[in-house]
Structure formats: C-alpha cells, structure tokens
C-alpha cells in the first residue's frame, strides 16, 4: 500500500466498499477494506497505518461509534483523519466525535474527493 495515498475503508456493505475501492483506485489511491470496526482494529494492529479512514456508522459486531471510541484511546490511531459516511439517520453522538468530515450516503462524490484530497 502506498503510504502517502493509502485509505482504509470500514463498511459492511460489500457493494459500497467495492465501488469505493474502484473509484479511489481510479483516482490513484490505494485502499484496504474492513467490514466492521473490530476487523479494522485488527487490520490496523498488523499493517502500516493509512493516511485516512472512511468510516461507516451502522455495522455489525463493532459499529462506527464503538470503533471511534477505541481509535481515540490510541495515540497513533487517534491521529488518523477520519471521514464518516452513513446512510442512517444522524445521531447526536456524532457531535462529540473527533472527525475530519462527514458525508451522508448517497455520497456527493466530488465533495468527498476534495475532502480526501486534503488529507492524502
């Protein structure tokens, strides 16, 4: 994975991750994917840290909120800018989250690309 343009996508919908990877690859980013928060933490423990995380909120096993809590407790992980992507209703909990940006699904693609470009 190219460290400078690396992104970790955490989303449980395979169609969403696959299409995101396809577009981001086309834009020159390299991507890794995890289908829930726990799988992402396991990935982050074993691999070089990505420049950016795209995080879904509603996921089985460990959802986006729980992942964010774990992320914030780790000094290194907390420094990775994180962009939220969600199709669900917006919870008040996101007000307390330390996130770089937030996009509802369907994602406004141009805006998402601009935001990603800011971080990697």
């Amino acid at each position, binding site marked *: 994975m190219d460290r400078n343009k690396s992104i970790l996508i955490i989303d449980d919908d395979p169609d969403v991750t696959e*299409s*995101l990877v396809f577009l981001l690859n086309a834009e020159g980013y390299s991507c890794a994917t995890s289908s829930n928060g726990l799988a992402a933490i396991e990935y982050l423990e074993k691999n070089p840290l990505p420049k950016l995380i795209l995080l879904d909120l509603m996921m089985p096993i460990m959802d986006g909120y729980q992942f964010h809590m774990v992320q914030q407790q780790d000094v290194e992980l907390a420094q990775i800018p994180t962009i939220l992507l969600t199709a669900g209703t917006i919870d008040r909990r996101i007000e307390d989250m330390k996130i770089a940006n937030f996009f509802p699904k369907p994602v406004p693609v141009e805006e998402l690309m601009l935001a990603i470009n800011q971080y990697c």
Partner: protein
Amino acid sequence: MNAYTNSGIPAIGDISWGSHFCNFFQTTEDLEACLIPFFKAGLENNEKCFWVTAEPFNTEDVKSQLRNALPKYEKYIKTNQLTILNYKELYLKYDINTLLKNWLITEENALAQGYTGLRVSGNGGWLESCLWSKFMHYEDTINSIIVNRRIIGLCSYCLDKCSSENILQVIRYHQFALIHYQNEWEIIENAQLKIAKEQLLRTNEELENHVAIRTQELEEAIKARDEFLSIASHELKTPITSLELYLKGILRSQKLNKLSPTELNQKLCKVLEQTERLTKLINQLLDIEQLSTKFLSLNNTTINLTKLTSAIIERYSNNNCLIILNNTQPVIGDWDPIRIDQVLTNLLANAIKYAPQKQIEVLIEQKDNTAIIQVKDQGAGISPKDQERIFDRFVRLTSCHSNSLGLGLWIAKQIVIACGGNIYVKSEMGKGSIFTVELPIK
C-alpha cells in the same frame, strides 16, 4: 354548553341538567340552609329561577331572606330572573298536564332570553293526604320530561308531615333525596339511579381502558412506521451510493484510459446489480401499500406448482447455492403464479441469506385437497421468541446491511392468507428451519 351546573349545596356540588331531587326538612333553618344557597348559585349562574313557597314559609319571609343573602336581589326581581310565588298561584290553579307543559315552555323562553337554564323549587308543605297520590304522579312525570332539558328541580318535604309511606314514595319519584339531619347532610340515592350511575362508571372505565389500549397500539404502529422509514431510506441509499461510485469510477478510469473492455463490462454488470437491488426494494415497498389494504387481487390460473418451483430454483442455480427439489410429481391447482412465485422466492432468498453455502431442500406434495410446500434450510435456526414475530412487518433478525426491509415473510404471509392458505415455521436452534406453506386446491 355545560352538562352540569352548580347546585349550591355543598353536599351535592355540581349536578347534571335534568336532575330532579328532593329535600326533607324538619325546621325552617334546615330549609333555609338548603334553598338559599340553591337559588344563590342558580342566579349567579344566570339561570331563570322559580321559588314556589308553602308552609313553613310565606312569600314575604322568602323575599326578606333572599334580600339579605343576595346583593343583587332587586335586580333579579326587576328583570324577572327570579320569581317568588305562593303554591296557591300555581298548584291549585292549573291541572298537572298544564303545569308540566308550562315548565317546558318556561325553559324554552328562558333559553331564548339568554338564560343558561331553569331552576325550580317547590315545597310540599301544602299537600293534604287526599292529594298525595295525584301529586306523586306529577313528581314521577317530571323525571321523564325534564331528563334532556336544561331544568333542575328541587322539591322540599317536611319530615314531620310525611308518613313513612309518603317518605318512601317521595324517594322513589326523585333521583335522590337530601336530608339535613343533626347538622349533617345525608344523601339517599334512588336504587335504579344508583345502578345506572355505577353502570355509567363501569362503562367509562371500560372506555378509558379501550382508549388506553388503542393509544398504545397506535404508538407502537407509529414507532414501527418510523423504524421502517429509517430502514427503508437506509436500504435505498446504499445501492444508490455504490451505483454512483461505480459510474464515477468508470468515467474517471475511461478518462485516464485505465479500463480494459473486460473490466468495463465487469463494472457495468456491477452497476446492473445495484439497479436490480433497487428494483427489488422498490417492488417490496409497492407491495406493502397493496397488501396493507387487506385486499389482494389474485389473477388465478391453473398451474403446476412443481414446475413453477423448479423454474424458481433454476433461477438460483448459478447463485453459489445448492437447492434440491424433492418431488417431480405434478401438483395442479388454481393459483396466481406471480404471487406464488413471490412467496417461494422470499422463502428461498431467506434460506440462502441465513444459511449460506448450505443445502436447501424444497418439498412439494399434495395431501387431499391441500398443496404443501416446504423449504428446509440448515441455518442457525430461529429462537421460539423470534418465531412468533418473523411474520410481522418490518422484522429483521440481523441488524445493519442485511439488504432487506424486513418485509419478505410478511408479504409471503399476506399472499398465502389471500389464497386461503396457511404459512408457519418449525425451527430448532443449531439445526435449521422448515417453512411450510399450505395452499387449498380449489
């Protein structure tokens, strides 16, 4: 307009219009204690008032009593809101029917003049024993004619002048009796009225219970609807998201000449998958509307259930799953092939979703006049608690992206019911589930 008015008598409080009650007294003070506040309350409530006096009062006594008690006494007299007259001017002048009719006319006129109702009090002090039964008939009739009118009537009887039989009669012909005895107010209710009141209370209580139950049901329905809307919007947004991402990705890659024809073809197939996912969701949404109206129109035609099932299984053949059909014997009946297809597709899709990569058995058989379809999976099984609710609307046993609205089994059930059939599940944890559909063969 209020259904109640203040009686002015603390022991009674508010009474409903149409009340006709009596008061037994022994002393003049007893009678004053009852009638003065009774008329005071009526006059202050802008009611037209009639006080028919008899022993132990005469009209002059009453006038001076009221003048002391009511600051606006002169105004009430002047405007004719209050009329004080002797029994001789009334009871001895007119026959019973005329008397009764006059009260009703007086009420109508009072209402027309802007009064809130008519308040009347009479006193039986003048009654001779020979007139008792006639007057009791008058009292009895009053009950039925004022019941829906804005009239209240209070009749006073002197205890010392009544025989025990008289007392019983008076109580019978009034809705309740008031007795000022040893400085305490006592109320004796007419037995029938008491029963009616108790019934009314019970009915009210039942009504309140019904309302509470209905309110809870409505709240649950609203909650289910909101949850459904949230799930539906989530489920619709997800395929649109990936659809857009694929298309943008294709455009971007094309621009950079990064995409081979094979890759392009692959991505376009993905795009198609997403539109199919959307179509399925939208069709389910449209189905709820039709099925919720409780009337499902079926286009029945003679079909072979075995053949139909076989064709549906064929559709899943390249879907990485193993479905076995345990029958080749035709089962013929009149059903709507599109709707039966929907039932089977929903059952199979669930089996594939909850028991992936495991064998699914489908059994078709005929028992007497019933066609039986069974879909047997080797999934994790459904707990008894979940078995009760899986046929309800908007129930999904997995959370998050399960690619469904929680409507599949509900839709299947509505269709089977419309066909006059039955659908149920038998399941054992760890061993799998058997969904059975029974359809009558007509």
